[in-house]
């Protein structure tokens, strides 16, 4: 056990799984960098250095720099997964989904069903998501609701370094296509992470705070902000449960409902655009399955329905903050359901 960053935790998971299983390969744009160039090899190790150092150990047969050609190499990863390899393909920014979506949702996601259960597609697509880098509309989105919508895909959103390592190892060992989304603002955050390999199962939510008044469900980077808000609220005498679903597909609906039954109040924090996102999905679930337990209307803390802006003050206003979460919790503590 030692302190590791989110970036190091992901790198270590990849290294350990590549050592364990020779069919695991990595492909993506500049996952090493420098291919065919006169200068340094492994020049980048991924655009933010997540795969740095793997080239020296595994060589160019298993660390494959691709052309800037997402349709071809994401499709190739799907084809390779269906024919005996375990590719971990890096899409770099999840926003680039737009140029290769067919290969993910019409091909990889549907093989097993269309082929009557005879296909296995152990594919991991890693991508960075989220706002906070002043990277504006085409490099900052939180597109996990789109993947969550597709039957056949699993969607994993690690909220911390510990979570990232265990969930990535699980993703690589999983026999279904997995979308693994890393929040770029989290790369330098650190916590204690075991040195040895370990897995965290999918579909099992993590309770990061336990309380009696309000349940906060938060996704990815929002988990840290929700914990921050919960700690402040505790000082005001409001006790919150904070739930990190870890995976949006499968979704641990049982634990969400259980927590809402206990607290009677629900705030959902989701960095994705507010229409048809995970917050609306969980709201619908709770409205259908736990309506009777609710003491106040469900509140969703999400960005406004606009593209991610560039100007720093606008981006800061866009992303949900601990203060907004705190305010939402305070509002559900005040609000009461109208008597029937």
């Amino acid at each position, binding site marked *: 056990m030692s302190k590791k960053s989110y970036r190091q935790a992901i790198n270590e998971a990849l290294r350990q799984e590549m050592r364990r299983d020779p069919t695991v390969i990595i492909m993506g744009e500049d996952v090493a960098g420098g291919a065919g160039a006169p200068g340094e090899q492994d020049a980048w190790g991924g655009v933010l250095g997540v795969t740095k150092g793997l080239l020296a150990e595994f060589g160019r047969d298993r660390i494959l720099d691709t052309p800037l050609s997402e349709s071809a190499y994401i*499709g190739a990863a799907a*084809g390779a997964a269906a024919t005996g390899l375990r590719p971990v393909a890096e899409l770099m920014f999840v926003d680039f989904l737009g140029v290769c979506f067919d290969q993910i949702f019409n091909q990889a996601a549907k093989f097993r069903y*269309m082929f009557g259960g005879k296909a296995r597609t152990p594919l991991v697509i890693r991508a960075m998501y989220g706002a906070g880098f002043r990277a504006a509309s085409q490099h900052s989105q939180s597109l996990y609701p789109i993947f969550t919508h597709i039957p056949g895909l699993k969607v994993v959103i690690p909220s911390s370094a510990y979570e990232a390592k265990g969930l990535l190892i699980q993703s690589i060992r999983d026999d279904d296509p997995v979308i693994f989304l890393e929040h770029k603002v989290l790369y330098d955050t650190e916590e204690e992470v075991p040195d040895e390999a370990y897995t965290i199962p999918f579909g099992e939510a993590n309770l990061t705070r336990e309380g009696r008044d309000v349940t906060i469900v938060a996704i990815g980077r929002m988990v840290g902000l929700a914990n921050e808000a919960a700690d402040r609220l505790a000082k005001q005498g409001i006790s919150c449960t904070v739930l990190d679903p870890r995976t949006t597909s499968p979704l641990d609906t049982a634990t969400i409902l259980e927590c809402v039954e206990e607290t009677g109040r629900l705030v959902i924090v989701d960095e994705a655009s507010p229409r048809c996102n995970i917050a609306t999905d969980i709201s619908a679930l709770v409205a259908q399955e736990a309506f009777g337990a609710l003491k106040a209307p469900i509140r969703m803390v999400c960005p406004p329905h606009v593209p991610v802006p560039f100007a720093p003050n606008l981006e800061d206003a866009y992303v949900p903050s601990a203060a907004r979460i705190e305010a939402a919790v305070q509002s559900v503590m005040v609000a009461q359901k109208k008597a029937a």
Partner: protein
Amino acid sequence: MQMNREDLLRAYRTMRTIRDFEERLHVEFATGEIPGFVHLYAGEEASATGVCTHLRDDDFIASTHRGHGHCIAKGVEVQGMMHEIYGRRDGVCGGKGGSMHIADLSKGMLGANGIVGGGPPLICGAALSAKIRKTGGVAIAFLGDGASNQGTTLESLNLASVWALPAIFVVEDNGYAEATSSSYSVAGSQAARAAGFGMPCTEVDGFDFFAVHEAAGAAIDRARQGGGPTMLHVKLARYYGHFEGDATTYRAPGEVDRLRAEKDCLNRFRARVTEAALMDGVELDAVDQAVADEIEVAVRNAKAAVMPAEADLLTDVYVQY
């Protein structure tokens, strides 16, 4: 690869099976008993057969909307296919794929594809898998002239060359992408496109089984030996519409009748082997009869077969969820 009598008989039987399968579906589709969309391969048999006779079960192919011929040529069982096209439980995909998504990975058939241009990237992956696992296998993308204009295809040509993959791109140019002529929709030429990606291209007469067989054999040998990808530009024709129900008013009057009379790949194969005294008409007629019987039984069985159980709706989405 020199073909002996047995090889020739097998090739003829494959082409005849495809033809009868498709001609029969044309008739059966009109009765309304077959659900969904069906795109027939009749007329193009020499292409699938000429290529796939070179392949092993661990070589992979990816197909198109027009995928029945590729399935049969790659060894997918006819009865399982017929069940599948009728949406039956015992179909090769359990009735969940249908004509446009028919597949059998155990035979190296990665699926017909409902998305035009869906296959070439997948084939880059299958070829990469063969290369990394050192199986000596090759992977082959069949695609139409329509798919040749998709970005996925052009990106795949590039990737296959960059990674020197054991991949073959077989452009089956039947002259029409849906209802639009390839003379209108394809700029430049297939061969020049291949050359642009540093890849050899062979122009092949797709009505001639032996021409396809020879060109494919050379490309596949080269790929197996690490020589990298090849494109085959196969010019051929389909006898039916883009889909069943297409009135094909965009074609010239008498176009298909002329093709059937003058260019038909099965007639040409028969003429070639009988003139060379490699086989006689009686043997070939016996194949025709055996195939006709097989298709008759397959259709009869499919019509009588059970549908999937309602519970099957929810299975096979994930390995584990």
